[in-house]
Protein backbone atom coordinates (compact mmCIF):
# COMPACT_ATOMS: atom_id res chain seq x y z
CA UNK A 1 0.00 0.00 0.00
CA UNK A 2 2.78 2.38 0.95
CA UNK A 3 4.62 1.51 -2.29
CA UNK A 4 1.55 2.39 -4.29
CA UNK A 5 1.27 5.84 -2.74
CA UNK A 6 4.97 6.43 -3.16
CA UNK A 7 4.77 5.50 -6.87
CA UNK A 8 1.69 7.70 -7.22
CA UNK A 9 3.58 10.61 -5.65
CA UNK A 10 6.53 10.08 -8.00
CA UNK A 11 4.19 9.89 -10.99
CA UNK A 12 2.50 13.16 -10.08
CA UNK A 13 5.64 15.22 -9.50
CA UNK A 14 8.08 13.84 -12.05
CA UNK A 15 9.07 16.47 -14.61
CA UNK A 16 8.69 14.42 -17.80
CA UNK A 17 5.13 13.52 -16.78
CA UNK A 18 4.09 17.21 -17.04
CA UNK A 19 5.44 18.11 -20.47
CA UNK A 20 4.89 17.05 -24.10
CA UNK A 21 1.67 16.12 -25.94
CA UNK A 22 0.98 13.26 -23.47
CA UNK A 23 2.03 15.36 -20.49
CA UNK A 24 -0.27 16.34 -17.62
CA UNK A 25 -0.09 20.03 -18.67
CA UNK A 26 -1.54 19.32 -22.09
CA UNK A 27 -4.12 16.82 -20.84
CA UNK A 28 -5.22 19.26 -18.17
CA UNK A 29 -5.71 21.99 -20.77
CA UNK A 30 -7.77 19.61 -22.92
CA UNK A 31 -9.84 18.57 -19.93
CA UNK A 32 -10.56 22.17 -18.96
CA UNK A 33 -11.39 23.05 -22.55
CA UNK A 34 -14.00 20.25 -22.82
CA UNK A 35 -15.47 21.10 -19.44
CA UNK A 36 -15.70 24.87 -19.90
CA UNK A 37 -17.09 24.64 -23.43
CA UNK A 38 -19.73 22.08 -22.39
CA UNK A 39 -20.75 24.19 -19.36
CA UNK A 40 -20.93 27.35 -21.47
CA UNK A 41 -23.17 25.68 -24.05
CA UNK A 42 -25.32 24.25 -21.25
CA UNK A 43 -25.59 27.72 -19.68
CA UNK A 44 -26.59 29.22 -23.02
CA UNK A 45 -29.47 26.74 -23.15
CA UNK A 46 -30.42 26.51 -19.49
CA UNK A 47 -30.20 30.16 -18.32
CA UNK A 48 -32.81 31.60 -20.69
CA UNK A 49 -35.13 28.68 -19.90
CA UNK A 50 -34.70 29.09 -16.13
CA UNK A 51 -35.12 32.89 -16.29
CA UNK A 52 -38.19 32.63 -18.49
CA UNK A 53 -40.04 30.07 -16.37
CA UNK A 54 -38.94 31.92 -13.21
CA UNK A 55 -40.19 35.29 -14.46
CA UNK A 56 -43.49 34.08 -15.89
CA UNK A 57 -44.09 31.24 -13.43
CA UNK A 58 -45.31 29.25 -16.44
CA UNK A 59 -43.93 25.93 -17.70
CA UNK A 60 -42.08 25.27 -14.46
CA UNK A 61 -43.57 21.79 -14.01
CA UNK A 62 -42.54 20.68 -17.50
CA UNK A 63 -39.06 22.21 -17.34
CA UNK A 64 -38.21 20.84 -13.92
CA UNK A 65 -39.37 17.34 -14.89
CA UNK A 66 -37.43 17.45 -18.14
CA UNK A 67 -34.40 18.48 -16.11
CA UNK A 68 -34.81 15.56 -13.71
CA UNK A 69 -35.15 13.28 -16.70
CA UNK A 70 -31.89 14.67 -18.11
CA UNK A 71 -30.25 14.09 -14.76
CA UNK A 72 -31.35 10.46 -14.73
CA UNK A 73 -29.84 9.68 -18.16
CA UNK A 74 -26.75 7.47 -17.88
CA UNK A 75 -23.92 9.53 -19.34
CA UNK A 76 -21.96 6.67 -20.85
CA UNK A 77 -25.13 5.36 -22.48
CA UNK A 78 -25.71 8.78 -24.03
CA UNK A 79 -22.13 8.87 -25.33
CA UNK A 80 -22.55 5.48 -26.99
CA UNK A 81 -25.93 6.46 -28.44
CA UNK A 82 -24.64 9.66 -30.05
CA UNK A 83 -21.45 7.87 -31.08
CA UNK A 84 -23.53 5.33 -33.04
CA UNK A 85 -25.42 8.16 -34.72
CA UNK A 86 -22.55 10.55 -35.45
CA UNK A 87 -19.47 8.34 -35.71
CA UNK A 88 -16.10 9.26 -34.33
CA UNK A 89 -16.19 12.92 -33.32
CA UNK A 90 -16.38 15.14 -30.22
CA UNK A 91 -20.19 15.34 -30.62
CA UNK A 92 -20.99 12.38 -28.33
CA UNK A 93 -18.82 13.85 -25.57
CA UNK A 94 -20.30 17.34 -25.75
CA UNK A 95 -23.89 16.14 -26.03
CA UNK A 96 -23.47 13.98 -22.94
CA UNK A 97 -21.70 16.67 -20.91
CA UNK A 98 -24.24 19.37 -21.85
CA UNK A 99 -27.12 17.04 -20.97
CA UNK A 100 -25.46 16.52 -17.61
CA UNK A 101 -24.97 20.23 -16.92
CA UNK A 102 -28.34 21.62 -18.04
CA UNK A 103 -30.51 20.29 -15.15
CA UNK A 104 -28.52 21.90 -12.29
CA UNK A 105 -28.47 25.23 -14.09
CA UNK A 106 -32.20 25.22 -14.93
CA UNK A 107 -33.35 24.17 -11.46
CA UNK A 108 -31.04 26.55 -9.63
CA UNK A 109 -31.94 29.48 -11.87
CA UNK A 110 -35.62 28.75 -11.39
CA UNK A 111 -35.16 28.39 -7.62
CA UNK A 112 -33.26 31.70 -7.52
CA UNK A 113 -36.00 33.48 -9.44
CA UNK A 114 -38.83 32.15 -7.27
CA UNK A 115 -36.92 33.09 -4.10
CA UNK A 116 -37.04 36.81 -5.01
CA UNK A 117 -39.32 38.55 -2.49
CA UNK A 118 -42.72 39.21 -4.18
CA UNK A 119 -42.86 42.62 -2.39
CA UNK A 120 -39.64 43.63 -4.13
CA UNK A 121 -40.98 42.59 -7.53
CA UNK A 122 -44.22 44.43 -6.78
CA UNK A 123 -42.30 47.55 -5.80
CA UNK A 124 -40.20 47.33 -8.97
CA UNK A 125 -43.33 47.23 -11.11
CA UNK A 126 -44.90 49.94 -8.99
CA UNK A 127 -41.94 52.31 -9.56
CA UNK A 128 -42.60 51.97 -13.29
CA UNK A 129 -40.16 49.30 -14.45
CA UNK A 130 -41.13 47.45 -17.62
CA UNK A 131 -41.02 43.64 -17.62
CA UNK A 132 -37.48 43.45 -18.98
CA UNK A 133 -36.30 46.04 -16.45
CA UNK A 134 -37.85 44.02 -13.61
CA UNK A 135 -36.14 40.91 -15.00
CA UNK A 136 -32.66 42.31 -15.62
CA UNK A 137 -32.43 45.02 -12.92
CA UNK A 138 -34.15 43.23 -10.05
CA UNK A 139 -34.90 39.52 -10.48
CA UNK A 140 -31.68 38.45 -12.22
CA UNK A 141 -29.28 40.25 -9.83
CA UNK A 142 -31.20 38.90 -6.84
CA UNK A 143 -31.25 35.36 -8.24
CA UNK A 144 -27.56 35.56 -9.19
CA UNK A 145 -26.12 33.87 -6.07
CA UNK A 146 -28.25 30.77 -6.68
CA UNK A 147 -27.63 30.90 -10.42
CA UNK A 148 -23.90 30.92 -9.78
CA UNK A 149 -24.27 27.97 -7.43
CA UNK A 150 -26.01 26.10 -10.25
CA UNK A 151 -23.21 26.95 -12.68
CA UNK A 152 -20.59 25.86 -10.18
CA UNK A 153 -22.31 22.53 -9.48
CA UNK A 154 -22.72 21.93 -13.21
CA UNK A 155 -19.05 22.68 -13.88
CA UNK A 156 -17.89 20.34 -11.10
CA UNK A 157 -20.08 17.51 -12.40
CA UNK A 158 -18.84 18.12 -15.93
CA UNK A 159 -15.19 18.17 -14.86
CA UNK A 160 -15.64 14.88 -13.03
CA UNK A 161 -17.39 13.33 -16.01
CA UNK A 162 -15.23 14.72 -18.85
CA UNK A 163 -13.00 11.65 -18.43
CA UNK A 164 -15.38 9.94 -20.88
CA UNK A 165 -13.77 11.90 -23.73
CA UNK A 166 -10.95 9.36 -23.51
CA UNK A 167 -13.53 6.55 -23.76
CA UNK A 168 -14.18 7.59 -27.36
CA UNK A 169 -10.44 8.06 -27.99
CA UNK A 170 -10.08 11.79 -27.26
CA UNK A 171 -7.83 13.51 -24.73
CA UNK A 172 -8.26 15.03 -21.31
CA UNK A 173 -7.26 13.63 -17.95
CA UNK A 174 -9.41 10.57 -18.65
CA UNK A 175 -6.63 9.43 -20.98
CA UNK A 176 -4.59 8.31 -17.95
CA UNK A 177 -7.53 6.40 -16.51
CA UNK A 178 -8.42 4.54 -19.68
CA UNK A 179 -4.79 4.00 -20.80
CA UNK A 180 -3.86 2.86 -17.34
CA UNK A 181 -6.73 0.38 -17.31
CA UNK A 182 -5.72 -0.96 -20.73
CA UNK A 183 -2.06 -1.24 -19.67
CA UNK A 184 -2.97 -2.59 -16.20
CA UNK A 185 -0.98 0.35 -14.80
CA UNK A 186 -2.71 1.09 -11.49
CA UNK A 187 -0.49 4.08 -10.70
CA UNK A 188 -1.49 5.80 -13.93
CA UNK A 189 -5.22 5.11 -13.30
CA UNK A 190 -4.98 6.51 -9.79
CA UNK A 191 -2.91 9.46 -10.98
CA UNK A 192 -5.59 10.42 -13.51
CA UNK A 193 -8.36 10.03 -10.93
CA UNK A 194 -6.53 12.10 -8.34
CA UNK A 195 -5.89 14.87 -10.88
CA UNK A 196 -9.57 15.01 -11.87
CA UNK A 197 -10.59 15.18 -8.23
CA UNK A 198 -8.04 17.92 -7.55
CA UNK A 199 -9.25 20.03 -10.49
CA UNK A 200 -12.85 19.66 -9.29
CA UNK A 201 -12.00 20.65 -5.72
CA UNK A 202 -9.86 23.63 -6.75
CA UNK A 203 -12.58 24.93 -9.10
CA UNK A 204 -15.23 24.46 -6.40
CA UNK A 205 -13.22 26.33 -3.77
CA UNK A 206 -12.21 29.06 -6.22
CA UNK A 207 -15.74 29.67 -7.42
CA UNK A 208 -17.36 29.61 -3.98
CA UNK A 209 -14.68 32.10 -2.87
CA UNK A 210 -15.58 34.31 -5.82
CA UNK A 211 -19.27 34.08 -4.89
CA UNK A 212 -18.49 35.16 -1.34
CA UNK A 213 -16.60 38.21 -2.58
CA UNK A 214 -19.20 39.16 -5.19
CA UNK A 215 -22.18 38.86 -2.85
CA UNK A 216 -20.63 40.16 0.37
CA UNK A 217 -23.24 42.93 0.63
CA UNK A 218 -26.20 40.56 0.53
CA UNK A 219 -28.14 39.87 3.72
CA UNK A 220 -27.30 36.44 5.12
Amino acid at each position, binding site marked *: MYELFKDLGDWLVSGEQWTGPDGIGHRLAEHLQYSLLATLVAAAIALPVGLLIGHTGKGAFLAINLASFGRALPTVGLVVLVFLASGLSMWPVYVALVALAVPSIVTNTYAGMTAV*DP*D*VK*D*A*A*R*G*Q*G*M*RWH*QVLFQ*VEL*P*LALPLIMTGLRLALIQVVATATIAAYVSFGGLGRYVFDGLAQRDLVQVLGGAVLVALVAVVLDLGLSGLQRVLFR*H*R*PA
Partner: protein
Amino acid sequence: MQPGKGHLMIQFDAVHKRFPNGTTAVHDLSLEMPEGGVTVLVGSSGCGKTTTLRMINRMVDPTSGTIRVGGRDVLDQDAADLRRSIGYVIQQSGLFPHRTVLDNIATVPLLLGHGRRKARARAAELLETVGLTAESGKRYPHQLSGGQQQRVGVARALAADPPVLLMDEPFGAVDPVVRTQLQDELLRLQKELSKTIVFVTHDIDEAVRLGDQIAIFRTGGHLVQCATPSELLARPADDFVADFLGAERGLKLLSLTPLKDIPQAPAPEGGTWELALDAARRPLHWRTKNTGEPELPVRPLRDTDSLLAALNESIASPTGLVARVDADGALTGVTSRDEIHQHAGQAHAEARVAS
Protein backbone atom coordinates in the same frame (compact mmCIF):
# COMPACT_ATOMS: atom_id res chain seq x y z
CA MET B 1 -53.02 70.45 5.38
CA GLN B 2 -56.32 71.75 4.01
CA PRO B 3 -57.26 70.13 0.70
CA GLY B 4 -55.50 72.36 -1.84
CA LYS B 5 -56.89 74.52 -4.55
CA GLY B 6 -60.25 72.85 -4.74
CA HIS B 7 -59.29 70.81 -7.81
CA LEU B 8 -59.94 67.11 -7.92
CA MET B 9 -56.78 65.13 -8.48
CA ILE B 10 -58.19 61.61 -8.47
CA GLN B 11 -61.72 60.58 -9.42
CA PHE B 12 -63.31 57.14 -9.24
CA ASP B 13 -66.48 56.86 -11.26
CA ALA B 14 -68.65 53.74 -10.83
CA VAL B 15 -65.59 51.50 -10.54
CA HIS B 16 -66.01 47.72 -10.20
CA LYS B 17 -63.25 45.19 -9.74
CA ARG B 18 -64.00 41.50 -9.94
CA PHE B 19 -61.07 39.07 -9.85
CA PRO B 20 -60.94 36.01 -12.13
CA ASN B 21 -61.77 33.76 -9.15
CA GLY B 22 -65.13 35.52 -8.85
CA THR B 23 -64.56 37.63 -5.73
CA THR B 24 -65.65 41.23 -5.94
CA ALA B 25 -62.91 43.42 -4.50
CA VAL B 26 -64.45 46.81 -5.24
CA HIS B 27 -68.16 47.40 -5.72
CA ASP B 28 -69.55 50.42 -7.59
CA LEU B 29 -67.06 52.90 -6.17
CA SER B 30 -67.40 56.60 -6.80
CA LEU B 31 -64.94 58.69 -4.84
CA GLU B 32 -63.13 61.97 -5.28
CA MET B 33 -59.78 62.96 -3.89
CA PRO B 34 -58.93 66.68 -3.81
CA GLU B 35 -55.55 67.99 -4.92
CA GLY B 36 -53.09 68.51 -2.07
CA GLY B 37 -55.17 66.54 0.43
CA VAL B 38 -54.65 63.29 2.28
CA THR B 39 -57.36 60.69 1.64
CA VAL B 40 -57.17 57.69 3.95
CA LEU B 41 -58.79 54.42 2.84
CA VAL B 42 -59.61 52.39 5.91
CA GLY B 43 -61.35 49.10 6.66
CA SER B 44 -60.64 45.57 7.81
CA SER B 45 -58.65 43.20 5.60
CA GLY B 46 -60.34 42.08 2.41
CA CYS B 47 -62.48 45.22 2.13
CA GLY B 48 -60.95 46.34 -1.16
CA LYS B 49 -58.96 49.32 0.12
CA THR B 50 -55.63 48.09 -1.24
CA THR B 51 -57.20 47.11 -4.58
CA THR B 52 -58.69 50.61 -4.77
CA LEU B 53 -55.26 52.14 -4.21
CA ARG B 54 -53.59 49.83 -6.74
CA MET B 55 -56.09 50.72 -9.44
CA ILE B 56 -54.83 54.33 -9.35
CA ASN B 57 -51.40 53.39 -10.74
CA ARG B 58 -52.71 50.44 -12.76
CA MET B 59 -51.11 47.73 -10.63
CA VAL B 60 -54.67 46.41 -10.96
CA ASP B 61 -57.04 47.35 -13.80
CA PRO B 62 -60.75 47.88 -13.06
CA THR B 63 -63.36 45.52 -14.52
CA SER B 64 -65.55 48.51 -15.34
CA GLY B 65 -65.84 52.20 -14.55
CA THR B 66 -63.36 55.04 -14.95
CA ILE B 67 -60.47 56.29 -12.85
CA ARG B 68 -58.99 59.68 -13.67
CA VAL B 69 -55.74 61.11 -12.35
CA GLY B 70 -55.29 64.81 -13.10
CA GLY B 71 -58.30 64.58 -15.39
CA ARG B 72 -56.89 61.78 -17.57
CA ASP B 73 -58.30 58.26 -17.70
CA VAL B 74 -55.57 55.95 -16.38
CA LEU B 75 -56.46 53.24 -18.92
CA ASP B 76 -55.51 55.65 -21.74
CA GLN B 77 -51.96 55.85 -20.42
CA ASP B 78 -49.04 53.46 -20.66
CA ALA B 79 -48.93 51.63 -17.33
CA ALA B 80 -45.17 52.01 -16.77
CA ASP B 81 -45.19 55.72 -17.69
CA LEU B 82 -48.18 56.30 -15.39
CA ARG B 83 -46.44 54.54 -12.48
CA ARG B 84 -43.29 56.64 -12.94
CA SER B 85 -45.46 59.75 -12.52
CA ILE B 86 -47.00 58.51 -9.24
CA GLY B 87 -45.10 57.84 -6.00
CA TYR B 88 -45.68 54.37 -4.54
CA VAL B 89 -44.80 53.24 -1.01
CA ILE B 90 -45.63 49.76 0.29
CA GLN B 91 -45.49 47.91 3.58
CA GLN B 92 -42.07 46.33 4.35
CA SER B 93 -40.76 49.11 2.04
CA GLY B 94 -40.03 46.73 -0.90
CA LEU B 95 -36.53 48.18 -1.24
CA PHE B 96 -34.09 46.53 -3.65
CA PRO B 97 -31.72 44.54 -1.39
CA HIS B 98 -28.90 44.51 -3.97
CA ARG B 99 -28.76 48.29 -4.37
CA THR B 100 -27.45 50.92 -1.98
CA VAL B 101 -29.93 53.21 -0.27
CA LEU B 102 -28.89 56.05 -2.59
CA ASP B 103 -29.45 53.96 -5.72
CA ASN B 104 -32.78 52.75 -4.36
CA ILE B 105 -33.96 56.34 -4.01
CA ALA B 106 -32.63 57.18 -7.50
CA THR B 107 -34.76 54.42 -9.12
CA VAL B 108 -37.42 56.51 -10.84
CA PRO B 109 -35.14 59.39 -11.98
CA LEU B 110 -32.91 56.71 -13.56
CA LEU B 111 -35.90 55.08 -15.26
CA LEU B 112 -36.85 58.51 -16.60
CA GLY B 113 -33.35 58.81 -18.06
CA HIS B 114 -32.14 61.67 -15.87
CA GLY B 115 -28.58 60.35 -15.83
CA ARG B 116 -26.72 58.75 -12.95
CA ARG B 117 -25.08 61.88 -11.53
CA LYS B 118 -28.22 63.98 -11.50
CA ALA B 119 -30.29 61.10 -10.10
CA ARG B 120 -27.80 60.48 -7.28
CA ALA B 121 -27.63 64.19 -6.42
CA ARG B 122 -31.42 64.28 -6.17
CA ALA B 123 -31.37 61.11 -4.04
CA ALA B 124 -28.83 62.66 -1.65
CA GLU B 125 -31.12 65.68 -1.27
CA LEU B 126 -34.05 63.42 -0.41
CA LEU B 127 -32.09 61.53 2.24
CA GLU B 128 -32.04 64.77 4.18
CA THR B 129 -35.70 65.52 3.45
CA VAL B 130 -36.80 62.27 5.09
CA GLY B 131 -34.44 62.71 8.04
CA LEU B 132 -31.62 60.29 7.20
CA THR B 133 -27.89 60.99 7.35
CA ALA B 134 -25.85 61.34 4.14
CA GLU B 135 -23.74 58.43 5.36
CA SER B 136 -26.73 56.03 5.28
CA GLY B 137 -26.93 56.49 1.50
CA LYS B 138 -23.92 54.23 1.02
CA ARG B 139 -25.43 51.43 3.05
CA TYR B 140 -27.63 48.55 1.95
CA PRO B 141 -31.30 48.31 3.01
CA HIS B 142 -30.81 45.32 5.31
CA GLN B 143 -28.31 47.37 7.33
CA LEU B 144 -31.05 49.85 8.32
CA SER B 145 -33.81 49.55 10.95
CA GLY B 146 -37.43 49.01 9.88
CA GLY B 147 -38.28 52.67 10.47
CA GLN B 148 -35.28 53.87 8.46
CA GLN B 149 -36.19 51.50 5.60
CA GLN B 150 -39.68 52.99 5.54
CA ARG B 151 -38.15 56.48 5.29
CA VAL B 152 -36.09 55.30 2.32
CA GLY B 153 -39.30 53.94 0.79
CA VAL B 154 -40.89 57.39 1.11
CA ALA B 155 -37.78 59.08 -0.33
CA ARG B 156 -37.83 56.70 -3.31
CA ALA B 157 -41.48 57.54 -3.95
CA LEU B 158 -40.73 61.29 -3.82
CA ALA B 159 -37.63 61.17 -6.05
CA ALA B 160 -39.26 62.30 -9.29
CA ASP B 161 -41.41 64.86 -7.43
CA PRO B 162 -44.74 63.26 -8.41
CA PRO B 163 -47.95 65.18 -7.62
CA VAL B 164 -49.59 62.01 -6.26
CA LEU B 165 -48.31 59.65 -3.58
CA LEU B 166 -49.84 56.21 -2.97
CA MET B 167 -49.04 54.68 0.41
CA ASP B 168 -50.16 51.10 1.12
CA GLU B 169 -49.95 50.48 4.89
CA PRO B 170 -46.50 52.05 4.88
CA PHE B 171 -46.13 52.08 8.66
CA GLY B 172 -47.87 48.76 9.35
CA ALA B 173 -44.72 46.79 10.14
CA VAL B 174 -42.94 49.14 12.57
CA ASP B 175 -43.39 49.40 16.33
CA PRO B 176 -45.87 51.95 17.75
CA VAL B 177 -43.25 54.48 18.88
CA VAL B 178 -41.55 54.57 15.48
CA ARG B 179 -44.95 54.62 13.78
CA THR B 180 -45.91 57.80 15.64
CA GLN B 181 -42.59 59.39 14.63
CA LEU B 182 -43.11 58.46 10.99
CA GLN B 183 -46.66 59.85 11.08
CA ASP B 184 -45.34 63.15 12.49
CA GLU B 185 -42.68 63.26 9.78
CA LEU B 186 -45.26 62.61 7.09
CA LEU B 187 -47.45 65.46 8.40
CA ARG B 188 -44.41 67.76 8.45
CA LEU B 189 -43.42 66.74 4.90
CA GLN B 190 -46.97 67.17 3.67
CA LYS B 191 -47.06 70.74 5.04
CA GLU B 192 -44.00 71.48 2.88
CA LEU B 193 -44.87 69.50 -0.24
CA SER B 194 -48.70 69.48 -0.45
CA LYS B 195 -48.90 66.21 -2.39
CA THR B 196 -52.17 64.48 -3.13
CA ILE B 197 -51.79 61.45 -0.87
CA VAL B 198 -53.84 58.27 -0.85
CA PHE B 199 -53.07 56.29 2.28
CA VAL B 200 -54.29 52.78 3.10
CA THR B 201 -54.42 51.59 6.71
CA HIS B 202 -56.51 49.39 8.99
CA ASP B 203 -55.63 51.57 11.98
CA ILE B 204 -58.43 54.08 12.60
CA ASP B 205 -56.23 56.22 14.88
CA GLU B 206 -53.69 56.55 12.10
CA ALA B 207 -56.52 57.49 9.73
CA VAL B 208 -57.80 60.21 12.09
CA ARG B 209 -54.29 61.60 12.59
CA LEU B 210 -53.31 61.78 8.95
CA GLY B 211 -56.49 62.15 6.94
CA ASP B 212 -58.08 65.27 5.50
CA GLN B 213 -60.83 62.89 4.47
CA ILE B 214 -61.40 59.27 5.45
CA ALA B 215 -63.13 56.66 3.30
CA ILE B 216 -64.39 53.66 5.28
CA PHE B 217 -64.80 50.38 3.37
CA ARG B 218 -66.77 47.29 4.32
CA THR B 219 -66.07 43.69 3.26
CA GLY B 220 -67.15 43.12 -0.33
CA GLY B 221 -65.62 46.37 -1.51
CA HIS B 222 -68.41 48.73 -0.47
CA LEU B 223 -67.59 52.31 0.42
CA VAL B 224 -69.68 53.05 3.49
CA GLN B 225 -68.80 56.65 4.27
CA CYS B 226 -66.34 59.27 3.11
CA ALA B 227 -66.00 62.39 5.24
CA THR B 228 -63.56 64.57 7.17
CA PRO B 229 -62.34 62.99 10.41
CA SER B 230 -64.46 65.26 12.63
CA GLU B 231 -67.61 64.67 10.56
CA LEU B 232 -67.00 60.95 10.66
CA LEU B 233 -66.45 60.91 14.43
CA ALA B 234 -69.44 63.14 15.15
CA ARG B 235 -71.86 61.52 12.72
CA PRO B 236 -70.99 57.96 11.69
CA ALA B 237 -73.31 56.89 8.85
CA ASP B 238 -74.29 53.60 10.45
CA ASP B 239 -73.48 51.08 13.18
CA PHE B 240 -70.70 49.54 11.11
CA VAL B 241 -68.84 52.85 10.94
CA ALA B 242 -69.57 53.58 14.62
CA ASP B 243 -68.17 50.18 15.62
CA PHE B 244 -65.16 50.69 13.43
CA LEU B 245 -64.45 54.06 15.03
CA GLY B 246 -64.54 52.39 18.44
CA ALA B 247 -65.89 53.21 21.88
CA GLU B 248 -63.54 56.19 22.34
CA ARG B 249 -64.90 57.93 19.29
CA GLY B 250 -65.85 60.98 21.40
CA LEU B 251 -62.32 61.28 22.75
CA LYS B 252 -60.89 60.91 19.23
CA LEU B 253 -62.97 63.89 18.18
CA LEU B 254 -61.48 65.93 21.05
CA SER B 255 -58.02 64.96 19.79
CA LEU B 256 -58.84 66.87 16.60
CA THR B 257 -59.90 70.10 18.38
CA PRO B 258 -57.09 72.50 19.24
CA LEU B 259 -57.00 74.48 22.48
CA LYS B 260 -56.56 77.77 20.63
CA ASP B 261 -60.07 79.22 21.20
CA ILE B 262 -60.55 78.10 24.80
CA PRO B 263 -60.32 81.05 27.21
CA GLN B 264 -57.72 81.28 29.93
CA ALA B 265 -57.73 82.90 33.37
CA PRO B 266 -54.77 84.31 35.32
CA ALA B 267 -52.80 81.69 37.23
CA PRO B 268 -53.79 81.35 40.92
CA GLU B 269 -51.50 83.03 43.44
CA GLY B 270 -51.47 82.60 47.16
CA GLY B 271 -53.85 79.60 47.18
CA THR B 272 -53.07 76.10 48.40
CA TRP B 273 -51.41 75.18 45.13
CA GLU B 274 -49.24 77.45 43.05
CA LEU B 275 -47.29 77.06 39.84
CA ALA B 276 -43.54 77.29 40.35
CA LEU B 277 -41.95 79.18 37.42
CA ASP B 278 -38.38 79.58 36.27
CA ALA B 279 -36.77 82.90 35.29
CA ALA B 280 -38.36 82.78 31.80
CA ARG B 281 -41.81 82.16 33.36
CA ARG B 282 -41.82 78.53 32.20
CA PRO B 283 -43.89 76.32 34.56
CA LEU B 284 -41.72 73.86 36.52
CA HIS B 285 -44.19 72.05 38.81
CA TRP B 286 -47.14 72.54 41.17
CA ARG B 287 -46.08 73.42 44.72
CA THR B 288 -48.14 73.67 47.90
CA LYS B 289 -48.01 75.82 51.02
CA ASN B 290 -48.81 72.83 53.22
CA THR B 291 -45.55 71.47 54.46
CA GLY B 292 -44.79 67.81 53.91
CA GLU B 293 -46.74 67.43 50.69
CA PRO B 294 -44.63 66.73 47.60
CA GLU B 295 -44.39 68.86 44.47
CA LEU B 296 -46.52 67.59 41.59
CA PRO B 297 -45.45 67.60 37.96
CA VAL B 298 -47.09 69.90 35.41
CA ARG B 299 -47.38 69.38 31.66
CA PRO B 300 -48.01 72.84 30.16
CA LEU B 301 -50.03 72.93 26.93
CA ARG B 302 -49.74 75.16 23.87
CA ASP B 303 -52.56 76.47 21.69
CA THR B 304 -51.87 73.75 19.14
CA ASP B 305 -52.33 70.94 21.67
CA SER B 306 -55.66 69.16 21.60
CA LEU B 307 -58.68 69.34 23.84
CA LEU B 308 -58.06 65.66 24.60
CA ALA B 309 -54.59 66.47 25.97
CA ALA B 310 -56.18 69.26 28.08
CA LEU B 311 -58.81 66.89 29.44
CA ASN B 312 -56.10 64.44 30.40
CA GLU B 313 -53.98 67.14 32.04
CA SER B 314 -56.96 68.55 33.97
CA ILE B 315 -57.51 65.12 35.53
CA ALA B 316 -53.86 64.84 36.54
CA SER B 317 -53.56 68.37 37.89
CA PRO B 318 -54.12 68.78 41.69
CA THR B 319 -56.20 71.92 41.13
CA GLY B 320 -58.02 70.79 38.00
CA LEU B 321 -56.27 73.67 36.26
CA VAL B 322 -54.30 73.30 33.06
CA ALA B 323 -51.23 75.51 32.59
CA ARG B 324 -51.22 77.24 29.20
CA VAL B 325 -48.02 78.49 27.60
CA ASP B 326 -46.98 80.36 24.46
CA ALA B 327 -44.70 79.06 21.71
CA ASP B 328 -41.62 79.76 23.86
CA GLY B 329 -43.05 77.83 26.80
CA ALA B 330 -43.76 80.90 28.99
CA LEU B 331 -46.93 80.81 31.11
CA THR B 332 -49.88 82.72 29.62
CA GLY B 333 -52.63 81.57 31.99
CA VAL B 334 -54.67 78.58 33.14
CA THR B 335 -57.89 76.89 32.04
CA SER B 336 -60.19 75.09 34.44
CA ARG B 337 -61.53 71.55 34.22
CA ASP B 338 -65.10 72.91 33.95
CA GLU B 339 -64.17 75.14 31.04
CA ILE B 340 -62.56 72.22 29.26
CA HIS B 341 -65.58 69.97 29.84
CA GLN B 342 -67.94 72.59 28.56
CA HIS B 343 -65.91 73.10 25.37
CA ALA B 344 -65.56 69.36 24.89
CA GLY B 345 -69.35 69.06 24.84
CA GLN B 346 -69.56 72.04 22.53
CA ALA B 347 -67.04 70.53 20.12
CA HIS B 348 -69.30 67.52 19.73
CA ALA B 349 -72.40 69.59 19.18
CA GLU B 350 -70.65 71.78 16.60
CA ALA B 351 -69.31 68.81 14.66
CA ARG B 352 -72.80 67.37 14.50
CA VAL B 353 -74.26 70.62 13.17
CA ALA B 354 -71.43 71.21 10.71
CA SER B 355 -71.87 67.86 9.01
